């Protein structure tokens, strides 16, 4: 049962990673990147690395997303 969850998480991880690169709307890309970090955090707990999971959830999904969004608001939203 555990491997099914892990497989689903990994598939979504690859999907979000590809989407974050391919999406032209930078705000949407930042949100997708946040989802990527959240999936990665769950995977860290699956790999029994709770310290890393906490860091990934706080820094990756929280602080980095806000920094990216603030940067987008101060520059332009659309990729060339």
């Amino acid at each position: 049962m555990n491997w099914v969850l892990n497989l689903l998480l990994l598939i979504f991880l690859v999907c979000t990673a590809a989407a974050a690169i391919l999406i032209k709307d930078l705000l949407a890309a930042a949100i997708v990147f946040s989802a990527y970090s959240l999936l990665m955090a769950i995977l860290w707990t699956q790999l029994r690395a709770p310290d890393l999971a906490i860091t990934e959830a706080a820094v990756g999904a929280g602080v980095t997303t806000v920094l990216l969004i603030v940067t987008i608001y101060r520059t332009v939203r659309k990729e060339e």
Partner: protein
Amino acid sequence: MRKIMVLAALVVIGIVLLYAVGKMPPMNSRNTPDKTHVVPRYLNEGESEGGAKNIITGVILNYRGYDTMGEVTVIFSALCATIALLDREKRKVSRSGVDASGVRASVIVRTVVRFLVPIVVFFAAYMILHGEATPGGGFQGGAIIGASVIIFTLVFGLPESTRRMPLKARVPFESIAMLGFLAMGFIGIAFGVNFLTYVLPGLHGSLVDTIRSQMLMVIEIGIGIGGGLVFTSIVLAMVREDEYELQPDIPQP
């Protein structure tokens, strides 16, 4: 032509990476050096040598203390670079929200954030103080503190945030992570042992463990408060709203 060159570069990098992966030991192999030497050492003696029940905290602060101090320096340098580029935040215009629309966040969002932020900060304090025994530690707790302040700023706006956490209150503590770490490192030198040695000579019995855990706690709290304030200051320097003064046609909320 350019696409072909990019493709060729990617193919070469891919081949090199696949070759490197092929040279790696098989997964879960029990004969690699980390399984025969490193992991047993940490698991068996990490608690007595590292001075923390959570072995990861012992590794981060003790076995690789220099490395962690480098990371703290990197975070502080990021703050210095952000301030050098963007200057400190201004506190003149009173508008809510990070975007220029001037629309206040809805009452649901404001109520939920007002209710949630104290709990998040409480959890961060637990994480900093209890990082010795459970997963987490100073850096994680600091990041959570920073995230809570960021949520508050995004919903209630920069002026309210800087009123609650004024610049004058943040500045003295931003460098506390580095200074605390350095001070604890130099205590070892003062006692005649190496830099960042927590086991001090001349002490006996349980005093050695007590002093060591207190020093680790000082470092953890320093990293927690300093890291959280550095995150806060970076974001507040980025969302400063001084350019809204140039747009007088936005209605006041």
